[in-house]
């Protein structure tokens, strides 16, 4: 079991000034390199001495990977842009306020000043068995300690769990999925662009990784098209401590409306599954329906249709039902149901 020592193991620190330089470093020894942006996830691993990389590549000196700029009819966000800068960016605020809202609810002001949007979407799960260095499935072992008869699993998954029941803790990821963002990844074979929801992996596909990033890959840009700009947005985060905490669950919804009728929608939750979970069935069901409590209630039921609670997290099922309902019909109209 890990003991906080606050003294990191020795490693070579490399601080490239350009993406090209970082690429060269990664191509030379991809398996022994740890990529670090804001360091908020990385320093936990390093101080706990659970991860002992040979080389740490500090990406924060790469200016080309920082900032928000116009891109086609939308925007491009450098992954090294701090969450505070995302929150305060005028273009984000004006067209994609859901992302601004989501980023503002991440942790504390100090952490948002240091943490980056790339790090927020790429961070590892917070399952304490895994973070404590226990040899669980996600750490390459053969057991999920959280999914045992006495496992503490109040914060864990109700959907899409397979062997591992850890969840994605990202607040910005569901918002980016709702906005149909594209993630640009630099690999040793060139650049590739993928849909936001495909950036994240569930345990059925890869139990030891949360994202599709392979050793040597770098997330170089997040592009948000204009398709969902200025839609009707909804973001809500439920956490134990409202001042500063990871989400028990959050929801992000973007809806195109004609009067009070939903003409199109994208919706995702985090904290329910190992990856940010896009609610495609719900999106299809509510299309063409009135955004009222009845539609929200039916959508909530559909959203949790495949949910399987663990010993201590059955509360997440009504939580998710109600979040979906509130996303569709609004907080004022929706009544909370057990």
């Amino acid at each position, binding site marked *: *079991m890990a003991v906080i020592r606050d003294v990191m193991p020795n490693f070579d620190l490399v601080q490239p000034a350009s993406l090209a330089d970082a690429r060269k470093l990664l191509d030379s020894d991809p398996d022994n390199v740890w990529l670090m942006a804001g360091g908020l996830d990385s320093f936990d691993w390093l101080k706990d001495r659970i991860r002992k990389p040979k080389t740490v590549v500090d990406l924060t000196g790469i200016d080309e990977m920082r900032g928000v700029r116009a891109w086609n009819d939308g925007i491009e966000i450098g992954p090294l842009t701090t969450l505070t800068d995302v929150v305060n960016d005028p273009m984000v605020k004006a067209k994609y306020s859901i992302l601004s809202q989501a980023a503002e609810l991440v942790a504390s002001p100090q952490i948002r000043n240091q943490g980056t949007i790339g790090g927020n979407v790429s961070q590892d799960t917070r399952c304490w068995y895994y973070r404590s260095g*226990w*040899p669980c499935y996600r*750490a*390459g*072992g*053969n*057991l*999920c*300690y959280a*999914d*045992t*008869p006495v496992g503490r699993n109040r914060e864990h998954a109700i959907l899409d*769990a*397979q*062997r591992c029941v850890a969840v994605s803790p990202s607040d910005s990821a569901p918002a980016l999925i709702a906005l149909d963002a594209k993630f640009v990844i630099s690999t040793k074979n060139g650049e590739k662009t993928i849909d936001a929801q495909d950036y994240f*992996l569930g345990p*059925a*596909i*890869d139990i030891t990784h949360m994202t599709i990033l392979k050793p040597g890959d770098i997330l170089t840009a997040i592009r948000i098209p204009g398709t969902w700009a200025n839609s009707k947005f909804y973001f809500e985060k439920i956490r134990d401590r409202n001042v500063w905490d990871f989400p028990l669950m959050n929801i992000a919804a973007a809806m195109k409306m004609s009067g009070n009728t939903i003409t199109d929608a994208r919706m995702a939750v985090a904290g329910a599954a190992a990856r940010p979970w896009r609610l495609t069935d719900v999106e299809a069901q509510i299309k063409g329906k009135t955004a009222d409590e009845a539609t929200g209630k039916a959508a909530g039921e559909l959203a949790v249709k495949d949910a399987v609670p663990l010993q201590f997290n059955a509360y997440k099922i009504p939580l998710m039902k109600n979040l979906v309902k509130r996303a569709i019909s609004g907080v004022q109209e929706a009544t909370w149901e057990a």
Partner: protein
Amino acid sequence: MGSIVEWATNPWGQSVPIHIGWVMIWVCAFSAIAFAVVHALYLAVFGKPKVFAVNDTPEMVNSIPEKVVRHGAVARAFHWIMATSMFTLLFTAFLPKVGVKFDWVTYHWIAGLVFTASIIFHIIHASFFLDFWAIWPDRTDVRDAFRRMQRFFGKPAPLPARFSKYPLENKLYHSTILITGLTAIFTGLFMMKRVNTHNIFTRNPYLFGDMTWGLMYVMHGLVGVSLIALVFVHVYFGIRPEKREITRTMIQGWMHKEFFLEEHDPARWRPGKDTDTPLTPPSEVPGD
């Protein structure tokens, strides 16, 4: 360099095995390929025709049909169901470990149940409806193996008899696959207690201690990678030109009379339709 077994420290500070080192996948795969290459080159350069002692009477030769049935439809169906499940098991187990990512666990345990059911069926079928002893080495096999070895090294020895229904190599392969297959089934069934099998098995991760579980995962992994090599070698022999007649018996069921008389001894194997009745009980060794 990877190790044969990966170890980890459990929450109680004990060092326990967790699974095999995945480098063993490549060790077994390359070993099998190397064996096939060396074997093919050896036969191409040094291979000699097989020579057997033959003393068939004309009556015996005349009694052999033109098409000699070796495997009935039921036995062939078993073989191909078992083979399909085996390939599914190998692909679902090892492709994700070499970088092909997909949702493999459910397919793997379902294929494992099909494999288990097919093996149970085979044991019953072979024990009560086929000649149970036909696949086990007998004294003639041992004697002829010794004779063949002596002749290989240039020492004088009588000619070996032709094979019974199965050559000794087939019988030894069957014994090896039996051990690995049953070990995979035995460990795999217990491992299903660790995953969600939609209530076919009730999950109980505490069924064993960490050391026992670890050893079970290691055994499952070791027989798994062994099966990569065994299946590869099986397929290699199946496609070799001199084995095509035998391979065809697993598709069409029968072999030509000429091939039968070249390689099989009618005194040791009198082919029937779906059942196989040896002319001599296993205790009696022809040629002694």
